[in-house]
């Protein structure tokens, strides 16, 4: 069933407003309300590392929703890419290594 035009637009606009509100929240208020307390600032130092790992780990480890090690092409390709990432800290090299490894593994195995 195809959703009605107006419904789709309403969803898009509501998602856009809500998402912008989440993004603007603290940035918008900064300086107008009390500053971020030191304990929170200390905690926020860990956001990038925690978020990045929370994006990467499931993408590599999960196959159809369950943890899979043996025969997991993406985990193997990810391991190759991780080695390149740690040596080079280069995004392009990591993408090329990971995608290349995945294609090779899927073709050969």
């Amino acid at each position: 069933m195809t959703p009605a035009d107006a419904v789709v637009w309403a969803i898009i606009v509501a998602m856009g407003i809500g998402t912008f509100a989440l993004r603007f929240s603290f940035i918008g208020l900064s300086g107008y309300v009390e500053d971020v307390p030191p304990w929170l600032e200390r905690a926020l130092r860990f956001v990038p590392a925690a978020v990045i790992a929370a994006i990467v780990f499931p993408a590599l480890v999960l196959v159809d929703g369950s943890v899979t090690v043996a025969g997991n092409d993406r985990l193997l390709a990810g391991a190759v890419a991780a080695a390149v990432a740690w040596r080079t800290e280069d995004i392009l090299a990591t993408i090329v290594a990971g995608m290349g490894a995945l294609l090779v593994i899927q073709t050969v195995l």
Partner: protein
Amino acid sequence: MPGLPADFHAGARDVAPTLLAVFPFGIVAGAAAVDVGFSLLQALGMSVIVIAGASQLAAIAVLGAGAPAVVVVFTALVINLRHLMYSASLAPEYRDEPVRVRAPVAYLLVDQVFVMAALKFDADAAVDRRWYYFGLGVPIWLTWVAGTAVGAVAGAAVPAWLPIEFAVPMVFLALLAPAVDDRPRAVAAVVGGTVAVAGAGLPLNLGLPAGALGGVLAGVVADSWWSP
């Protein structure tokens, strides 16, 4: 783009390789939208108005499954809760800026932009907070919208054997190394990733925010352990 400050170009240079992942991610989003019945304009409108790929794909999937509009929006916003953390994390950098700068900063606050800006600001106190950020955000925006358009028009033509969406975790994998530059941050990453995997079965993609929160808490504990 001549005439723009040097730090805009620095940001654009740094972000360039990630565009290789943003473009196919846009293709996936555009193709998925058209697949459930969006027009080209609606697919583009969603990418321009929302610019948050994971929530767009989830919303499209939930909508395609016949869920009511309220549930679709709720699902998307729960997935985007992590942006609250991003906003809090970058807020001190923009406390002296006017709203006309803060608003576009917030609009462009997608995963890659946040991670790359946070790492750069942490390492380089002198870099221009405005221009470097827009140097990251504007190319990502252009690429995301262009990818969506291509996906909406020609998505069905992408061969199934080409794992284009695998480029996204590869970008974050490359950013993980500079993000874990000390032991408490390594703890935050290991715990964050593990919790996200354990929580993958949770509804509404809640594994990601749960992992982020768990990782941050673990980092705080580890931090006070090693440097009381």
